[in-house]
């Protein structure tokens, strides 16, 4: 059993479990799954600066911050306590392409160290991946009114056409970055 938990979980186990989080939150507290809102609540709690969009009763949304704290705890349990293979088992084609196009050589860990090691902040590439990348995630999700959890999982599950528009936007952005901008960066 423990050995099964330690191996990476296949999509047909993980996907349905992620899907069940939607009814679990509804049944437990009438809450809709959505994670990017937590970033807004932190801004509202720490640096509201008189901005109307950050002036609201964020204390009513503490459940969302607790949920996110749980996700971090889950990351610790899943990766450190249960343990996880050092190398993510991506397809051979992806390894080949990342070697050829992005000159990556180290495929250990969750993220490529060559792009995300903190000492990369001394050069422009580190700023693009760590700072600009994170900034676009925070800016874009709030602008779109949700992220992969709020729009793709929660929204599509509730047959919201608005969420389908958002998901098409997510994918369009990801494809442009991967196929158009990455080749210019490397």
């Amino acid at each position, binding site marked *: 059993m423990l050995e099964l938990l330690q191996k990476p979980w296949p999509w047909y186990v993980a996907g349905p479990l992620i899907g069940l989080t939607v*009814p679990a939150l509804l049944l437990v507290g009438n809450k809709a799954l959505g994670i990017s809102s937590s*970033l807004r609540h932190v801004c509202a709690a720490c640096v509201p600066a008189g901005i109307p969009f950050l002036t609201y009763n964020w204390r009513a949304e503490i459940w969302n911050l607790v949920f996110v704290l*749980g996700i971090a705890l889950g990351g610790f349990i899943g990766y450190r306590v249960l343990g996880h293979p050092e190398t993510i088992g991506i397809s051979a084609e992806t390894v080949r392409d990342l070697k050829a196009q992005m000159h990556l050589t180290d495929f250990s860990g969750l993220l490529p160290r060559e792009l*995300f090691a903190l000492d990369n902040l001394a050069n422009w590439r580190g700023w693009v991946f760590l700072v600009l990348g994170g900034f676009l995630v925070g800016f874009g999700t709030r602008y779109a009114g949700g992220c992969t959890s709020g729009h793709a999982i929660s929204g599509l599950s509730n047959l919201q056409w*608005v969420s389908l528009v958002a998901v098409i936007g997510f994918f369009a952005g990801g494809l442009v970055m991967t196929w158009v901008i990455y080749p210019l960066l490397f």
Partner: protein
Amino acid sequence: MKYFKYLVLGTLFGIILTKSEVISWFRIQEMFRFQSFHMYGVIGSAVVVGLISIQLIKRNHLKSLNGEPIAIADKKFNHGVWIGGFIFGLGWALTGACPGPLFAQLGSGVGAAAVLILAALAGTWTYSALREKLPH
């Protein structure tokens, strides 16, 4: 104590995200390069299970534990949905993470996640400050 249930659900959610490797930059690249079914399988089956669950909840008029009738607000359209969605997509492919995975990465001990989360907070704050001036 009233928040404990959300801590438990969040922890389970974080374990699932981690064990299914959707918090890995490598998996997100594999997805955007159409080189594996994994991510599509995870997201697709999550939506199918979520959809069936919500239908069951609605048809049976289920109530939440605190006795409230379960109600899910409709998402309203504005042009920010696709403009912001596209901007997030650029960031998703760069960082290989959406907001949930960022927190799971932080817990798993990835130092970069701390910088990414701070940058994401700066992005959310900047959007909030500029909101009135942006097309919606």
